[in-house]
């Protein structure tokens, strides 16, 4: 399976501060399911920012879809971003747009016809339990509903990569299970999933997922299976979870 994401000695610093990510190297296979864990301040969100192209690393090589995006001209980045769905920790919904328009946004940005948009958007909103809230503005929804709206927006375009930052943090366990089912379904369709979470029960629900752990900006990888280039063959993870071939 080819690598869809490759990090090689990536370092990231904001301004003149110390590096928030240092010497991060790994590669993720297309169609894989990955969890990213680590304590608060470990650098999870910064690493995700690199993944969804909100930030460029200050050093190292970062390849997405086989292309180095570090030196890439910014005019090419939108094309890459359209292939990446993102669930932000703070949802980042557009406050003046309805649930329908928020979820339709990625499709409209990519230039899809309105007639083609209505069906998938309505279906997706219904699926995340917002079928009766099409016209609701984000401010009128609960945290959980906003999170579901954000997830619906991230997956509506069936992205090649889905990056989610604590995607089940504000939903009840039943909805969390349902949303994870959605991620798995997407993963089965070929989407590479990267989820940053503290939620260990959530991680345990996807037995085939691979795990990455960040500690103070460095990737803690006892098996070495996620390094780029891979140093060792896939092996058992620290919690007895398979770190072998994803999917």
């Amino acid at each position, binding site marked *: 399976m080819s690598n869809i994401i490759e990090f090689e000695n990536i370092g990231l610093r904001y301004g003149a501060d110390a590096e928030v990510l240092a010497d991060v190297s790994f590669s993720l296979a297309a169609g894989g399911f990955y969890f990213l864990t680590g304590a608060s301040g470990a650098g999870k969100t910064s690493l995700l920012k690199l993944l969804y*192209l*909100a930030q460029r690393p200050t050093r190292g090589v970062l390849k997405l879809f086989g292309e180095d995006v570090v030196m890439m001209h*910014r*005019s090419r*980045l*939108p094309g890459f971003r*359209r292939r990446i769905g*993102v669930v932000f920790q703070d949802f980042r919904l*557009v406050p003046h747009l309805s649930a329908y328009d928020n979820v339709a946004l990625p499709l409209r940005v990519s230039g899809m016809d309105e007639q083609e948009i209505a069906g998938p958007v309505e279906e997706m909103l219904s699926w995340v339990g917002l079928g009766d809230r099409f016209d609701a503005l984000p401010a009128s929804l609960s945290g959980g509903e906003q999170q579901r709206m954000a997830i619906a927006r991230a997956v509506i375009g069936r992205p090649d990569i889905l990056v989610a930052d604590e995607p089940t943090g504000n939903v009840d366990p039943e909805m969390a299970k349902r949303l994870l089912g959605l991620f798995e379904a997407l993963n089965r369709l070929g989407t590479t999933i990267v989820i940053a979470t503290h939620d260990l029960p959530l991680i345990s629900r996807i037995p085939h997922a691979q795990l990455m752990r960040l500690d103070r900006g460095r990737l803690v990888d006892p098996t070495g299976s996620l390094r780029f280039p891979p140093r060792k063959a896939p092996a058992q993870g620290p919690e007895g979870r398979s770190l072998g071939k994803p999917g």
Partner: protein
Amino acid sequence: MMEAGEDTLMRRIAKAPQNRWLPEGRRGPMPWIIAIIMFLTLLSGAAGLGLAHALVQTRAQLAGGYTVQIVEAGAKLRAAQVAKIAALLKQDPNVQQVSVVPEDRLLKQLEPWIGQDVRAGELPVPALIDLSVSPGVPARDVDALGKKIAQMASTARVDAHGAYLAPIEKLMRTMMWLAAGLVILMILVTGAVVTLAARSAHETHRGTIDIMHLLGATDIQIARLFQRRIALDAIFGGMVGTIAAVFMLWLLGRNLAATGSELTGLAIIPWQWMPALLLIPIFAVLVAAVTARLTVKHALERSL
């Protein structure tokens, strides 16, 4: 007035989903600032056009006009010289029209200085012959004619009518360029106002722009939103400013016409010239839209 007119236009355009990406809401003072700028710009433009029209008309009226002045003290000799010169001029193929100004009329014109009691022949008044030369006659032919006249009467002098109005023409031309300069300055001010407004709008909506960027929107897609919004403001402001300016010009034109003065009448802009004036608001809207697009695009280029 703005709310109603603008609202209808806004609603129609806002139907397109991409036009809702930025919140519509109140427009702020931008349209009114543009309306004021447009009003002043159109008045300056109208002043420039009025002066240009007056200049063209004056030139047309004075082109080819000359006066022969014979300053001979002896009345008999002067009359003889006038007759000879008039005959010469009438025979010249380059001369279209010749008229000897009657002495009574000259005395009438001199009344403010010499009073009403002076009769013809009592005071040696120079004789005047007005003539007009056919259009396109070379200056050297006019000079040659002047020499012939000088040979007939050593005191005769030929004056071109255009020369009398040369200082006024110079003043009119200066004022015309001043008006043109004001129009250009006003357009630049429009650009500056739009730049500030676009920067401010970009800052206000930075959160939404960041989200759209991360969802894959291009700079052009985002810049187009601002361009559309500011173009609508400029169209509205331009329309209000134009209507107000046209009304003001109509009022001024009516008042100028009422003076009955030939000189002020020349400054009334003919209707055929009006499209040139109306190009100003169209150009201003284009400047506003392009400036908004470039400003936002430039600001976006500073982000990833």
